[in-house]
């Protein structure tokens, strides 16, 4: 009857529903936390308490194996999407002075025909990371490594800010008629290759990915080959090595020609 108080010991509904629920919960807990783990000998559990802890998901220290340090230097730069997005005019000014040392290869305006990278308009975070990697030895180049060896952190920030400040200018190779190869637009999902454009600017830009438009084809091809062979390995988590290893020689040529022709 409705007048009867709900929570009273004489209400059979309370006893029955709470009882059934508790029994189901207990049985499922016993089965899930004790019986099923103990029924799996490969878990090598030490007893009931060990079984409960294991099934409840209590984290346990992994056995300490020997860690093999890599025999090469890895990049220590942490990239974030917001890194160095806000230019500082003083830094740009200092960078302009420092950049006079770089002009012989990279051009007085950050653009050159020397098959070295065009730095004008490059993202500051990208230039900074590469300088840093040259300095630490994560990336090695006979010309660049000695330059970077003596740079201070502030020097690298200033240079990066200066080159990001310079406008991108059309190079002598610009050509609107070069079609975008499939690897740039769609990648090759079955070979685990994301579209180049999804990081390098045609579709989207991801942290740490350089702007490739107008870069020398010789340079792009050399870098992809270096990534593929493992000579260059300062890419974070092997992102570019994994891509380059799976690209065909023909695709590398197409990509290099395409990006060289872009503004």
């Amino acid at each position, binding site marked *: *009857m*409705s*007048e*009867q*108080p*709900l*929570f009273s010991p004489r*209400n059979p*509904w*309370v006893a029955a*529903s*709470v009882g059934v*629920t508790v029994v*189901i*919960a207990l049985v*499922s*807990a016993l*089965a*899930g*936390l004790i019986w*099923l*783990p103990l029924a799996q000998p490969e878990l090598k559990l030490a007893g009931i308490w060990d079984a*409960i802890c*294991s*099934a*409840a*998901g*209590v*984290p346990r220290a992994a056995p300490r194996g020997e860690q093999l340090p890599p025999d090469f230097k890895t990049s220590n730069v942490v990239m*974030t*999407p*917001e890194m160095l997005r806000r230019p500082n005019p003083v830094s740009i000014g200092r960078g302009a002075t420092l950049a006079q040392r770089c002009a012989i290869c990279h051009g007085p305006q950050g653009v050159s025909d020397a098959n070295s990278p065009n730095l004008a308009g490059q993202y500051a975070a990208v230039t900074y990371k590469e300088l840093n990697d040259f300095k630490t030895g994560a990336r090695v180049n006979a010309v660049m490594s000695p330059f970077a060896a003596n740079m201070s952190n502030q020097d690298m920030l200033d240079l990066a800010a200066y080159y990001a400040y310079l406008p991108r200018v059309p190079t002598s190779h610009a050509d609107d008629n070069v079609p975008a190869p499939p690897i740039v637009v*769609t990648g*090759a*999902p*079955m070979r685990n290759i994301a579209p180049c454009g*999804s990081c390098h600017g045609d*579709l*989207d*830009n*991801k*942290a740490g990915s350089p702007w490739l438009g107008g870069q020398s084809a010789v340079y792009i091809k050399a870098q992809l080959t270096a990534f593929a062979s493992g000579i260059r390995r300062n890419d974070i988590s092997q992102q570019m090595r994994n891509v380059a290893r799976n690209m065909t020689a023909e695709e590398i040529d197409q990509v290099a020609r395409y990006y060289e022709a872009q503004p």
Partner: protein
Amino acid sequence: MLTNKRLILAHFWLAFAVFGLALVLGAWQMFVRSPLNAWHFDPEFYYRSVTAHGTVMGYVFPTLVAMGFGYAISEASLERPLTGRRWAWAGFLLVAVGAVVAMIPVSLGLASVLYTFYPPMVGNPFYYIGVVMVVVGSWIWVALMSINMAVWKRDNPGKPVPLAMFANVAGSYLWGWTAVGAALEIIFQILPVALGLRSTIDAGLARVFFSWTLHAIVYFWLVPTYIAYYTIFPRAIGGRLYSDAMARISFILFLVVAMPIGVHHLFADPQVGAGFKFMHSVFTGLVALPTLLTVFTICASAEIASRLRGGSGAFGWVTALPWANPIMLATALSLVMLGFGGAGGLINMSYQLDASIHNTQWITGHFHLIFGGAIVIMYFAIAYDLWPHLTGRALDSFGWMRTQLWLWFIGMTVTTFPWHYVGILGMPRRMAFYDYANPAISPQALSVSMSVIGGLILLISGMLFLVVLIRGQMAPRCEEGREEGAWRFSVALHMPATIPAALNSFGLWLALMIGLTVVNYGYPIAQLMVLNQTNVPAVYVGAGR
């Protein structure tokens, strides 16, 4: 008597308008990722579209239907005007504004995180703020349903709460509690990161919180459908409800066991222990119980109606049912889809079987068949049943209604059965591009193309549905105030005069629901909150733009 017709109509019209838009997006998504489309679009647009489709279909559309239907049930079954009319309008405005606030960043490509959020992906804060506004708006409805039932009980001591209202309040409590998980995730984990106050997030904990919401939300979507089964269907076909008490027990079971089962969505997640996965699996199995009770009661009710109409024989009575009646048709088609969808669901909830279809297109097929099929087809039926009472105009394009319902059933079958199949073949879900030229994937091309045709049929059916409602809105007005014209609910074979307190109130069941949540979720959540170094850097969606 329905007095706040404008309030209820506003909910339904907004619900069906956003449903129509999201349906177009859904059909487009199916086309662009199929072999029928040469790959020539920005995959970003696909994820934008999936986010919008999921957010609208998962949060906005069913919430508005449940709210509008709930207000209608409250007024019609308690036979008194809604208490808190202004609050109800405030809730509606919150949902409407929230939906717009959430959709702006999504359409700008700043929140392509899909409606399940997927931390460590983090989108624009306004997306999450919009979703929170939708949820808060619906919590106003939860409170109003509870208050209206309490006011009625105070004025009618000892009388059984009408079944429709009892079920409606059960659904609202279920939603009120299950939405807490996602709310905790958004407010304490995602929003601080989206607003730039923190740059790392405990993605594992966030997924556990979301699973708290993710499964029981399905039962919140389902409750209006079940209310329609129990309280509209028997009346519409001229029969009686087989058992009032069985109906109450079904809704109570949903309230108690629908909640502590969400971890079966995390079977492949390493941050939850296998023991808790097993416990959630057991309770997931128990949820089949109220559905089986319902199928039995509804079939028995149909048999009563048929025998009253002269049906006879062990199975011959089925032919005597009023098949020309759209409510009859919708309920039958809904039960068929519920059967297939439920069978698939038993596979999802089994730890070992799940491993073969986890995160494949099978899952997409499963929830479209259950939600888009079994549940939404009854939303159509509810609208068809309620529309004349809301508009005061006749809704008599029965042929169009039957065509629409059949098209929806055929469309959903042609869409989701091939999806289940390609899921078994291993096709992953949530991807914009599949290389069907690859020999390993090419066997899926035919099935995927078939499902595109299903999507097109669904689009046609959805548009036809809106046309039927618009025609109803433009038909000439009928004379008002006739007693026999009032919107009524089914009468049970044995209408209860008195009823045990447990079947007339929620205190006991809410205590069990919260208790089971603590038992099944308490330790996994507490452990993840205590553990250090479980945070990962957030991945900001669209940060470069």
